[in-house]
């Protein structure tokens, strides 16, 4: 260590998207300072441009991906499987950079891509919302980009310290964002609640992390994983508390019951685009954290956290879906729906299989668009009628057909109605859980039951908007057929993702396989070729007899 600083600058290339984003943050900041009068559009445009640059950089990072493809021609076959058929034999080892504190695996690409994608959709509709409510626009972009930066670092971190700093960058900027409309009491209150709750959760996370450090003497995730393996066979309460304390914080970020109680209050009080950000971008980053910690570092302690998380996933589904039935505010309803969806997504991770992980990643992708679409629609509704109460949106179809159509598609997708992405996400997820073993049937039972309950509160707003008598606010509204761009984008993506699910599933499958293949304790078995849904597949003789004449 005392040989002086020798840095391998290779890692800078890998961090190109983050660098682009940081430059964007600084540019927006300079613009904010330089201009006496804020112009929301300029800032927004600058933010979106830097996001796009960042996304482009991420795409450029295909360089190691491309190398891999060049050396593995079978990958092309794999990626084009929906059209050609074929299988992938092996996945590449993930790379690490900067003293192994950064991990360049497919998961980090995928999560960073998701985060940036989410933000690109969020920023345009944020502008529309905030410029009506506050004069200070520039700082918003600054903060929201900073939060995303934190999330991206979270996704690529291979070190507990980096993980922590990324997490806190995301969290602290989120606290500020939740209170962005500080002149509104609700917004300030949401921010303060979120901060206190998040602060305590952070303390718990750190306490658990300090125990990890105590046990292994390292902060590097790989070394930690190796070090914890020595303890994985032991039954000692310190280990349980260590795992549970870290878990509580991660699940708090995911709003899994019983760590979910902040969610509805914060979503309701925060500005709507921030609520969208928290429910999509922040949650995606939290999933990265969850996967890093539990599908990797704590894999040896699966017998501690697996039953607990299964239980909590089910509890979240129940709590989220049941309490949503009683909501009268659309934003709050979406907050509870978020809790329920987090429960579903958690299922894919707790079953610890390639399929499960892959379908959770696909679910995240689908969820990103359908939930952003729903939030965008709610935001435009709020902008139009100044309220998100269910009683006020009644009969909106006559005045805002485009909005109602978009919101309906997104709600149907959230409810899991066929041909939308939400349906396929649930379908693949449930399939993966079933395939992981018969002992998980009770999870599916609860998932199906609560999905049925959820139909009511997803369809109720649609019923009100489409066949309800126009409410007073709606009656006074001038008709307009405008369909805002972000909403259209999200709606179309919701359908497209559903129809072309195979392509995305191949990418998530690759990611999941690489992730679980590189985690030391559990060797991943090659997935069975024919995983059947309900009825056992026929033997080979049967197959031959059946298709012999074709």
């Amino acid at each position, binding site marked *: *260590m005392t040989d002086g600083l020798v840095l391998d600058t290779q890692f800078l290339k890998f961090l190109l998207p983050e660098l682009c984003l940081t430059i964007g943050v600084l540019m927006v900041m300079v613009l904010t300072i330089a201009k006496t009068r804020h112009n929301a559009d300029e800032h927004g445009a600058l933010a979106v441009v830097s996001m796009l640059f960042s996304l482009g950089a991420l795409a450029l990072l295909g360089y190691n991906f491309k190398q891999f493809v060049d050396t593995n021609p079978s990958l092309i076959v794999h990626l084009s499987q929906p059209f050609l058929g074929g299988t992938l034999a092996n996945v590449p080892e993930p790379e690490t950079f900067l003293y192994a504190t950064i991990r360049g695996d497919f998961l980090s690409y995928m999560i960073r891509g998701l985060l940036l994608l989410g933000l690109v959709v969020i920023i345009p509709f944020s502008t529309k919302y905030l410029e009506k409510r506050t004069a200070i626009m520039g700082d918003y972009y600054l903060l929201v980009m900073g939060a995303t930066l934190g999330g991206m670092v979270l996704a690529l971190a291979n070190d*507990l*310290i980096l993980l*922590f*700093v990324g997490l*806190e960058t995301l969290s*602290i900027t989120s*606290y*500020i964002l939740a*209170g962005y409309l*500080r*002149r*509104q*009491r*609700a917004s*300030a*209150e*949401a*921010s*303060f*609640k979120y*901060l*206190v709750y998040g*602060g*305590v959760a*952070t*303390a718990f996370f*750190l*306490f658990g*992390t*300090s*125990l990890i*450090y*105590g046990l292994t*003497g*390292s*902060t590097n995730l790989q070394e930690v994983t190796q070090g914890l393996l020595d303890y994985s066979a032991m039954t000692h309460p310190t280990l349980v508390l260590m795992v549970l304390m870290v878990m509580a914080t991660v699940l708090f970020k995911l709003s899994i019951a019983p760590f979910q109680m902040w969610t*509805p*209050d*914060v979503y*309701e*009080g925060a500005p709507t685009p921030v609520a969208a950000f928290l429910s999509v971008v922040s949650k995606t980053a939290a999933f990265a954290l969850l996967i890093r910690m539990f599908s990797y570092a704590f894999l040896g302690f699966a017998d501690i956290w697996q039953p607990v998380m299964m239980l909590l996933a089910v509890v979240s589904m129940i709590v989220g879906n049941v309490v949503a039935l*009683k*909501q009268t505010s659309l934003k*709050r309803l979406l907050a509870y729906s978020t809790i329920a969806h987090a429960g579903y997504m958690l299922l894919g991770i707790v079953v610890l299989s390639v399929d499960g992980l892959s379908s959770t990643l696909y679910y995240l992708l689908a969820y990103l668009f359908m939930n952003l679409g729903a939030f965008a629609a709610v935001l435009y509704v709020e902008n139009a009628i100044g309220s998100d109460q269910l009683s006020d949106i009644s009969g909106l179809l006559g005045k805002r057909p485009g909005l109602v159509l978009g919101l309906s598609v997104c709600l149907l997708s959230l409810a899991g109605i066929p041909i939308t992405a939400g349906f396929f996400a649930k379908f693949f997820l449930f399939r993966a859980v079933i395939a992981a073993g018969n002992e998980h049937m009770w999870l599916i039972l609860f998932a199906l039951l609560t999905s049925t309950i959820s139909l009511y509160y997803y369809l109720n707003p649609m019923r009100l908007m489409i066949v309800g008598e126009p409410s007073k606010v709606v009656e006074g509204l001038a008709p307009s057929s405008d369909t805002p761009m972000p909403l259209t984008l999200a709606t179309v993506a919701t359908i497209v993702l559903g129809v072309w699910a195979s392509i995305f599933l191949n990418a998530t499958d690759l990611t999941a396989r690489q992730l679980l293949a590189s985690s030391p304790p559990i060797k991943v078995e090659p997935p069975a070729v024919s995983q059947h849904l309900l009825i056992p597949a026929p033997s080979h003789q049967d197959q031959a007899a059946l298709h012999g004449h074709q």
Partner: protein
Amino acid sequence: MLDVGLYHYLILAVALFSIGLYGVLASRNAIRVLMSLELMLNAVNINLVAFNNYLHLHDLSGQVFSIFILTVSAAEASVGLAVLIALFRRTHSADMEQYSILQG
């Protein structure tokens, strides 16, 4: 008893953490809540430095971790106070009981 070792520091940290947690859970004054939060984070720092000193002297990454926690918690505290000021402007009270218009 007097032979102080790692476990003394760990228990000290647990005690500090618990007191801090109680302060967060039970204080009525919002500023006191923020102060208690800082106590909890400091407890973690004690843990980390103790571990580093007693178990893992091959490098000082425990201390580095503490420095980061220190930095971040300072940022968190200042943001917390700023939020509190904004909230106080609307409610004219630092009473935690007042901060509950969002519910249900």
